[in-house]
């Protein structure tokens, strides 16, 4: 009977979303036995990795009390820049990845400055950045993207170790790093404090501006990494590749239980949220539901989960 309090404690810190993940998996396996296959579970984990990595960044920003809608543009720009610099050659790999990461840090820092120093609402600032990033990608390619990922690079997106897909391993690694950052460092405590109440945090001596700038830089960096993983998976440039992540990244964080007002949420919960959303999408693909119905189901789930979390937090 010692197990029960332990399990409850784990669930509380990891997020109730994991019950939903397990529940959805059971339900979908009953309706479609194809979900039981190991290959399908691995496939879902592989596809969830891209959303998962991007959502890690979104978690940081939402915890700070903001939102980052420029992740989609960042993913697209990363994909375009990486493929056009790599041009399929292994020797260009490191350079291409380095350029993308540096670009992401700069763009994230700019986002952070717009929000923290200049004082523009995060929704507006990042929405503007998103448009700019997509515009830059469009101007850079003239509408006609070129380039390709190197074969060696594509191992990161399509390869596997002991049967586990490479993107999933990278996602788990990044999630572990983020958990350490948020739970084990001063920065993590400052982030939660800023998100819960920025004024109080400032009075306590938290360097709020720097915390926010770092948060947006992290978000852009993780969006870039998600873009690089996606590039490794597909191998080709595409101007539309980031669009699907703009709001699904936010949805993954919200479904995981984070409050949009800040200060509440966690990395493990977002991981669960990303898996949940991907599982739902995969399940609706398998049961041949039309795209319209798919959107409706996803929207309903998001609204229900926000309501459920509000009830849960009131019950505490």
């Amino acid at each position: 009977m010692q197990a029960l309090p332990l399990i409850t404690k784990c669930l509380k810190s990891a997020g109730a979303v994991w019950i939903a993940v397990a529940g959805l998996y059971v339900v979908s396996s009953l309706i479609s036995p194809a979900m039981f296959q190991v290959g399908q579970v691995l496939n879902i984990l592989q596809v969830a990795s891209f959303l998962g990595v991007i959502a890690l960044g979104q978690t940081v920003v939402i915890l700070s009390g903001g939102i980052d809608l420029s992740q989609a543009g960042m993913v697209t720009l990363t994909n375009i820049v990486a493929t056009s610099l790599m041009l399929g050659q292994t020797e260009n790999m490191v350079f291409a990845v380095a350029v993308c990461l540096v670009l992401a840090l700069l763009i994230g820092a700019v986002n952070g400055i717009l929000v923290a120093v200049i004082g523009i609402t995060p929704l507006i600032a990042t929405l503007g950045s998103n448009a700019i990033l997509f515009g830059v990608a469009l101007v850079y390619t003239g509408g006609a993207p070129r380039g390709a990922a190197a074969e060696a690079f594509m191992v990161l997106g399509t390869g596997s170790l002991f049967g586990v897909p490479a993107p999933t391993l990278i996602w788990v690694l990044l999630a572990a790093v983020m958990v350490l950052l948020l739970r084990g460092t001063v920065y993590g405590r400052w982030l939660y404090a800023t998100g819960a109440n920025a004024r109080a945090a400032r009075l306590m001596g938290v360097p709020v501006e720097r915390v926010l700038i770092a948060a947006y830089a992290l978000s852009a960096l993780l969006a870039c990494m998600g873009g690089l993983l996606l590039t490794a998976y597909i191998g080709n440039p595409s101007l539309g590749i980031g669009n699907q992540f703009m709001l699904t990244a936010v949805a993954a964080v919200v479904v995981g239980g984070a409050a949009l007002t800040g200060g509440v949420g966690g990395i493990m919960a977002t991981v669960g949220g990303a898996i949940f959303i991907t599982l739902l999408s995969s399940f609706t693909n398998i049961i041949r539901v039309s795209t319209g119905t798919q959107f409706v189901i996803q929207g309903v789930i998001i609204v229900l989960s926000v309501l459920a979390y509000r009830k849960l937090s009131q019950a505490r």
Partner: protein
Amino acid sequence: MIITTHHLNRRGLLKAGAGMATLTLLGGRAFAQEGVTLTPVGAMVKGTTKPGPYRIAFANGFSGNSWRAMAIAALQAEAAKTPDIAEFVVVDGQGDINKQVNDIEGLINQQFDAILIIGNSGSAVAPIVKQATDEGIVTAPFNLPIDGEDWSTYVGTDPQKKGATLGKWLSDALGGKGKIVALGGLPGNSYTAAGWAGAQEAMSKDIEVLAFKDAFWEEDRAKVVMADLIAAYPEIDGVWCDGAQNATGAMKALLDAGRPLVPVTGDDYNGLLKLFKAEKANHPKFDIGLMSEPTWQGIFAMRAAVSLLKGEEVPKQQILSPAMITAANYETYLRPNLPDGVFTDNSLTDEELAAIFKA
């Protein structure tokens, strides 16, 4: 193999009036616009003569993919070659229905002589196009149709017929029976809807359609959707697509899953041709049946607009029968040194394509 340059080719043919078939017989690279059949549909329409040279505008609904970039380049090249055209301007609707309506309003105010259009929504732009036509501007929609008849002349393929031809090809490639999946484009778009409706009628009764999913004409989305379908259905004998970005993504998903590649349909996207060349030796069942969605169709809309401005007659609609690309002739279309995003049935030279794609 005789390599003919773009300019020589056209003038030579016009002078000689030789059959268009000569070009493909010579085994040269296919400049398909030379070999095209344009079927006139509907009554002839006559324009009011206006003094040249003319100012022409193109209200493009959306510019964010390589098909549109190539279409614009083809139009610009044609405008540069036509002495009757003094000015050619492109306006980008950014995928926004309202913005495109505003764009067209602006073009009307700037008193352009003719407006070419690819509409984001056939119904939403119909009123503003009607207004332009009523004010004496020649309106020439192409590629995607506009509702009603209040435009001057239309050029395009017939997606229902294309879908039917592709469906029949797939059905024949499978010997009349098998299980297929179908991948469409943006959810709810009328081009896919018409194509898939045509395909379903044309396929044999013993072809079982396992699923139809929207894949956004994006390789990455198609790959993910196909991976789910692969998990759900252990046997997939063929794939119907209207756009070959979907086909390429689907084939890559099959490769990743270690399954054999199967007959697939689509359009003239270079990426699929490259994949076919690379993989056909390893996968004996892999086969392609493609109908191009020509990026040069706007040229015919532009020529029709200029004819109307000169007071000549043109058909109300001109329907293109695009080139059919199969394993037999795909190498004349394949561009191994150009990016996947090139639509290979085009009127541009390799130098012009390289300039667009900066390859």
